[in-house]
């Protein structure tokens, strides 16, 4: 497929399915009995618990601290008591548990005292970035990369454009759409705060042309300020991918193996920007988010503002329950979302949606051999050759797969979406990437072991040499001694 009007190559046009959930305002989900808070809801290291079993916690209280530079803290999303610290069901298709903290809510939902920050615009950029870090904010578009790390990295470069990603190209999902319609002012405020942190020249808010209301709301909200533009981009999947959006807006490509900062752009999802604004203006950590609950099996699809840690089942119930047994339960959108093993999985910071799809919505045809039709090549927004990558990955020839583009693959799934042979291309890519990673870390380990060996060898030799030297020294005065001391 070629888009004559857009610099973005390839891409696909999946049916949007957005109408039902985008028609209703954001509702607020009720307080659950228990909150399940995994320690890793972000890219990077697990957060470290700072509460003990039985502790009373207040809403917004820090319960697990960031473990390293790339990590994010976790806060209690309501008041109550810590009843367990240990394995909780994690959002992962395997259903394996991950470590987390379970809070039994007391129903008061009482906030911890937050120190209301003074006017953030008068503060040092780095102090603001630290505040964002303390609020535990991660990329809410699904990327879950700690927002503060991005801000701090960006502050070291010349950032021309703060790019707000409101494209929301995944089918079904309408959280960003609703957020922009209902909270446009806060988002614009947040964008200006980010601009202040980065000392960026301008702000661009990119919205797909299928969201006219959001476009109008954002235009109105940014009216009073200069250097903010709302740019309408064509509805095309994966327009919401940072690389593609930068290409669309600036006409430039992010160099391979590089960051978007190297083309002077920093991309943040509009939901993340809202969270940043809440943290900087009101001192609120990230403890809730908007989630689209939709799919053919959901009785009343809509957007729900929910606390992090609420089981998916509660949200499904809140939306009228399920009308039939779903063929697939997903967290995120259908293109890149993750299969949930069951509905007990808690909502995490990166959960953009909960989809209960019926069997007509999830096509699962058996795979047949590749006919080399090149549709995947045409659909790939990165200019890769998915058919060759998959063929090599299947044959465990990972270097071959890399050679045909695996290292540049963003796992967007456009290729698998159009494959007439229904080949699970992304599955092969994930497999190959995992193997590559494992191999690389094994190599690193080997290297490390070898280094240790070499160092030991060197040390032994040096010791040997030193001993020999000492012996020789000793021998000089008493030349008759033949036996050396051991």
């Amino acid at each position, binding site marked *: *497929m070629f888009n004559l009007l857009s610099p973005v190559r390839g891409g696909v046009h*999946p*049916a949007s399915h957005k109408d039902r959930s985008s028609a209703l305002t954001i509702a607020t989900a009720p307080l659950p009995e228990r909150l399940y808070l995994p320690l890793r809801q972000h890219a990077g290291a697990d957060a470290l618990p700072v509460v003990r079993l039985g502790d009373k916690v207040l809403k917004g209280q820090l319960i697990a601290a960031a473990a390293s530079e790339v990590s994010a803290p976790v806060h209690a999303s309501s008041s109550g008591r810590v009843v367990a610290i240990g394995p909780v069901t994690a959002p992962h*298709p395997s259903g394996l548990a991950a470590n987390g903290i379970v809070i039994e809510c007391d129903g008061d939902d009482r906030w911890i005292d937050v120190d209301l920050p003074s006017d953030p615009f008068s503060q040092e950029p780095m102090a603001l970035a630290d505040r964002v870090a303390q609020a535990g904010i991660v990329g809410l578009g699904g990327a879950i990369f700690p927002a503060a790390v991005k801000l701090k990295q960006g*502050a*070291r*470069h*010349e950032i021309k454009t703060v790019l707000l990603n409101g494209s929301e190209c995944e089918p079904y999902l309408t959280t960003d759409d609703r957020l922009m319609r209902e909270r446009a002012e806060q988002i614009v405020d947040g964008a200006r705060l980010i601009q202040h942190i980065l*000392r960026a020249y301008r702000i661009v808010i990119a919205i797909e042309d299928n969201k006219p209301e959001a476009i109008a709301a954002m235009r109105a909200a940014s009216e009073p300020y200069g250097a903010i533009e709302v740019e309408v981009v064509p509805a095309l999947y994966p327009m919401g991918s940072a*690389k593609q959006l930068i*290409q669309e807006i600036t006409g*430039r*490509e*992010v*160099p*391979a193996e*590089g960051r978007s900062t*190297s*083309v002077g752009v920093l991309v943040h999802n509009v939901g993340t920007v809202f969270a940043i604004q809440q943290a900087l203006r009101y001192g609120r950590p990230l403890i809730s988010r908007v989630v689209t609950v939709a799919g053919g099996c959901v009785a009343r699809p809509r957007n729900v503002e929910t606390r992090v840690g609420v089981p998916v089942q509660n949200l499904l119930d809140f939306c009228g329950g399920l009308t039939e047994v779903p063929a*697939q339960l*997903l967290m995120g959108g*259908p*293109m890149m*979302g*993750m*299969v949930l093993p069951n509905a007990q999985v808690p909502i995490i910071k990166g959960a953009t949606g909960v989809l209960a*799809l019926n069997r007509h*919505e*999830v*096509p*699962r045809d*058996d*795979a*047949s*051999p*590749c*006919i*080399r*039709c*090149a*549709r995947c*090549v045409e659909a*790939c*927004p*990165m*200019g890769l*050759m998915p*058919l*060759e990558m998959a063929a090599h990955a299947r044959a465990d020839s990972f270097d071959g797969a890399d050679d045909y*583009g695996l290292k*540049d693959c963003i*796992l967007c*799934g456009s290729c*698998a*979406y159009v494959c*007439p*042979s*229904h080949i*699970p291309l992304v*599955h092969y890519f994930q497999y190959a990437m995992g193997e590559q990673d494992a191999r690389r870390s094994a190599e690193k380990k080997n290297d490390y072991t070898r280094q240790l060996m070499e160092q030991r060898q060197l040390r032994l030799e040096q010791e040997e040499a030193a001993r020999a030297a000492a012996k020789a020294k000793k021998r000089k005065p008493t030349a008759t001694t033949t036996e050396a001391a051991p």
Partner: protein
Amino acid sequence: MSHQPASAPHAHDRSSVSRIMLHVCLALTPCTAFGIYIFGWPALFLWLTTCVTAVAIEALCLRVGGQPLRRLLDGSALLTGWLIALSIPPWAPWWIGAGGALFAISIGKHLYGGIGQNLFNPAMLARIALLIAFPVQMTSWALPLPIGSEQAPGFAEALAISFGGAPVADSFTGATALGHLRTSFTLHQDARDVLAQDFSLIEAVVGRTAGSLGETSELLVLLGGLWLLALRIISWEVPVAMLLGVALPSLLANLVAPEHYAGPLFHLSSGGLLLGALFIATDPVTSPAGRSAKLVFGAGCGLVIFIIRNWGTFPEAVGFAVLFMNALTPLLDRYLRPRVYGRLPGGKPLQAASPTARVKQPGKT
């Protein structure tokens, strides 16, 4: 392969191999129907025999190869048979069609491992094999005698022609326009005179000329091809490059030496060129995947056709040209890849922007 990992994406555009193949067959229907009308009952019998044999052999090969029989439904064997039927003389005896289908499916496709694995276009492989093995039968082209016209063979007569080995009177057969030009060329006649006598553009485009089923009505072939293009079942690169690959050199040659070389219009409207460009060279399995590779592939096909038609010994060249370029497809795929996002054409990463302006807080890097 029936195990389906539940990995993303959980959505699909609902395309399938069988839908692609059946659409191609549908696109071939108008020109086939017209061809059958023009060449009468024998053409129908031959077409039926070829298609049925192809499907039967496919079933057998799947069985023997231990592949799931449901692959029969992908329609690829039907399409191969169909393309063979379109590219052999319509009054050829049944065993030409059946033999071609047998060869194409068993040797041309399943010997390589079945669908998607073959290096060469099976239909063209069969056509060339037939041409070499049975030159007489493969070059006796029936003259158009539409069903119902006076001299057209009746049903029984047609059965005798297709299945009974009845000889076809010489008066019913003729040379194709290309064949004629070829013969005249060797007799040192002026191309212009030959064409003036023998070739009428209108007739060629509409399809009332001697030739194979699919070589006759260029108009209907074009129509089917355009439909496939509109549905994005085939892409434009190969057909356009291939037609240009024939048209440009022939235009040039015709300008330089009109007494030796026919012009582009003659070439474009004769032989299986359009069918080849739209339906045969675009076969996904045997053509390259990247855009530039497709363009080179198409242009190469066109150029080889031009060369063979003008200087080679066979008057018809599409089959040879396609097979020749098929052989180069793996190379083209390897060396002419799309440019990767964020990389230069060779694969090196793009340079980061103005490195001088990058560090804002020198102390912090």
